[in-house]
């Protein structure tokens, strides 16, 4: 039986087939679907942890206790979890521990383009890299086996293109579920698991010895293999880039690497002996190329292919032609990319964030932002966000701005899921260090941007069970914040007054703007329309950046099919030209 699966679906399927029992992660495009799909298999437990570090620690605990575990993350999430990666690299584990990490070349949905292959070398742990969904499935099993054989966490590296492409997967016999699994007892071994300096000093040589053994393993594992072709070009490549290279160099000899760290030195030398020119085709950094160079083998790599951005068949062809690696071929008719109006993503019609950003725009605040749907508040015409670095950064940044003496209309905005992810610690920091910043939590009850995953403020778990609903305002009050208000973001006048009051209050404060994500709840009301005779063309409703509203001769119009009926435009219309239609369009 064959099935078309995305890379992420195949990772989940592979984890299930490999007997992984525990999955934990934090949503992040392009990795989110792995855990979501894994959670649906029988006999497994999966959770959205509050952040990637907690997720990795949860998986470490499971693996220490003797159950196979998989942690999922996008590339920047591994930064958050890095502290835990480095200790577990030393301790090792009892059952298999696999981290599925998805890089995002081209930054389709990320703030930077880091190449996480460096983490393998940095933390001295093995890394495997599949090239299609079939391999995504089978490499999880390989990774679990390597993890247990070598007593090490293993990182699987994917990229956006692999995780979000659908390719054919062979279905396999499903594992038999143990009906009465024996209860686990925790095996105490403090010398291995307590990373005091004295113990850690004993573990470091173990790690170095392990790497040597893994390097030997890399020579013989079927994960790495030579595909014999002509004796002119020898291509070393891995991951989805292998697919592009196969199209461009159909007759070359290939060293296809399924294991990208540690690298198989003998295989690389064998390839070099077979061919006149070795070429490394890899996305982002010259990770493989530098290793080949250290072996003293002349190699072409980043002198041919770019360091920046995603590769594709077309890009590999272009650079290979320019470098003379393949013949120029017949010149294709060049069709220029037309210059057409763009279509950037916008806050949805009916989105509660709009009310806050419009108020902040009118109050001319300096707004320290964060990562989520609400980052779209930076887009024109709202233009209401002035910094955005990484998850949780805005609350620390605003405090620094405060401490250098800037007190003029500064606010930090953070989403609800982001608040639980990494906003609580800097919130405590503001209070403890006597800051006076105002924090606005944009609470839509769900992790919206990545596809509506539940979080501690949603009242549900990934497994679909009811859970305690944790509220940001109660966290703030519990910490000791005195000035805390909850507002409905559509209640524009109240929102403006509340923000003004908080800006003046001279103490640290929090506003929770609560409205469930309309894309998630599918909430729709009777749409609005415009009485063009009353419109004085002030342009207010065009400044809220709501797609259904457009400029026409003598006023504006609202697209009935797109309007969610939230009525925010009517609230801010000075001449009452916008009204709700009668009828029952639900």
């Amino acid at each position, binding site marked *: 039986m064959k099935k078309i699966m995305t890379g992420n679906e195949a990772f989940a399927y592979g984890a299930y087939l490999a007997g992984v029992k525990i999955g934990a992660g934090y949503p992040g495009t392009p990795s989110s679907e792995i855990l979501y799909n894994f959670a649906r298999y029988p006999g497994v437990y999966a959770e959205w942890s509050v952040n990637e570090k907690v997720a990795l620690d949860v998986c470490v605990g499971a693996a220490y206790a003797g159950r196979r575990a998989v942690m999922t993350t996008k590339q920047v999430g591994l930064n958050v979890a890095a502290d835990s990666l480095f200790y577990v690299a030393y301790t090792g584990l009892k059952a298999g521990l696999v981290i599925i990490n998805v890089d995002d070349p081209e930054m389709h949905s990320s703030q930077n383009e880091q190449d996480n292959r460096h983490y393998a070398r940095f933390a001295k742990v093995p890394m495997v890299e599949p090239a299609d969904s079939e391999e995504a499935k089978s490499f999880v099993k390989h990774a679990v086996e390597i993890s247990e054989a070598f007593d090490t966490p293993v990182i699987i590296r994917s990229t956006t293109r692999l995780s979000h492409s659908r390719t054919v997967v062979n279905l396999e016999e499903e594992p038999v579920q143990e009906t009465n699994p024996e209860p686990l007892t925790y095996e105490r071994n403090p010398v291995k698991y307590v990373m005091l300096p004295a113990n850690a000093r004993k573990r470091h040589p173990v790690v170095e010895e392990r790497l040597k053994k893994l390097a030997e393993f890399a020579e013989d594992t079927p994960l790495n293999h030579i595909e014999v072709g002509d004796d002119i070009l020898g291509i070393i490549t891995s991951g989805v880039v292998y*697919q592009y290279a196969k199209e461009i160099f159909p007759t070359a000899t290939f060293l296809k690497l399924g294991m990208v760290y540690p690298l198989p030195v003998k295989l690389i030398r064998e390839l070099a002996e077979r061919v006149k020119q070795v070429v490394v085709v890899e996305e982002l950094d010259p990770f493989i190329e530098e290793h080949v160079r250290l072996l003293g083998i002349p190699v072409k790599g980043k002198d041919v292919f770019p360091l920046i951005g995603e590769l594709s068949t077309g890009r590999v062809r272009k650079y290979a032609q320019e470098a003379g690696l393949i013949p120029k071929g017949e010149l294709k008719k060049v*069709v220029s990319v037309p210059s057409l109006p763009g279509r950037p993503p916008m806050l949805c019609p009916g989105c509660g964030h709009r009310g806050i950003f419009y108020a902040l725009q009118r109050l001319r605040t300096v707004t320290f932002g964060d990562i989520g749907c609400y980052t779209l508040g930076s887009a024109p015409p709202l233009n209401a966000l002035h910094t955005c670095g990484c998850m949780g950064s805005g609350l620390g940044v605003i405090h620094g701005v405060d401490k250098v003496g800037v007190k003029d209309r500064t606010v930090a905005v953070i989403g609800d899921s982001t608040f639980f992810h990494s906003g609580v610690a800097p919130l405590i920091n503001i209070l403890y260090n006597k800051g006076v910043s105002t924090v606005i939590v944009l609470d839509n009850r769900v992790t919206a941007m990545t596809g509506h995953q539940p979080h501690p403020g949603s009242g549900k778990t990934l497994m679909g069970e009811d859970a305690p609903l944790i509220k940001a305002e109660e966290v703030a009050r519990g910490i000791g914040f005195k000035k805390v208000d909850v507002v409905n973001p559509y209640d524009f006048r109240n929102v403006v007054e509340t923000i003004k009051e908080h800006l003046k209050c001279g103490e640290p404060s929090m506003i929770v703007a609560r409205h469930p994500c309309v894309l998630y709840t599918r909430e729709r009301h009777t749409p609005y329309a415009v009485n063009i005779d009353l419109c004085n063309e002030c342009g207010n409703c065009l400044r809220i950046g709501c797609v259904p509203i457009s*400029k026409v001769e003598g006023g504006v119009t609202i697209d009935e099919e797109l309007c969610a009926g939230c009525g925010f435009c009517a609230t801010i219309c000075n001449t009452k030209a916008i009204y709700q239609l009668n009828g029952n369009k639900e």
Partner: protein
Amino acid sequence: MKKKIDFFLAGVGGQGTILTSDILSEVGLNCGYDVKKAEVHGMAQRGGVVESHVRWGEKVYSPLIEEGEADFLLGFEMLEAARWPHFLKAGSIALVNRYRIMPPVVNLGQAKYPEETEIETILSETGARVVWVEGAVKAREVGNLALAGVVLLGALSRYLDEPEEVWINVIEEMVPPKFKELNVKAFFAGRKAG
């Protein structure tokens, strides 16, 4: 069986581009092809641009279509169809839904939505044949604007040799059960259009 057929699908988030490309992939698999599909989504639901590549072949390596190699373009929206001429091969067929969704810059009066004739020129300069499909009109007739993608699939099926029952079976399998009948109707509305 052809050596390879590449389909490029372009639309706006929320138009059903992704489901349509999933159906198209499944049809290829059912007809014995190796199939790969790539798409850019993530922020797609927020009204952004969606592009999807579907590749059928004896053996497909890259999930992405190379520029200048697409055999078919399925344009869910006129402006979006016009955005990708550089992917089209000479002699390819561009099936374009005659439907406009104004982007925000046009709504704000800062840019102009291109005329139908401009869009036709942009696409036909590549050597592609432009076929206008009344996808939105027919989808509304069948009962729901969201069916326009399946109307486009019906129109596409006229240019392919794959048997009708494969299309129908795959559609019935992949759409939510309560919308089965509507989707099949939408497919025929596209397939029968002259």
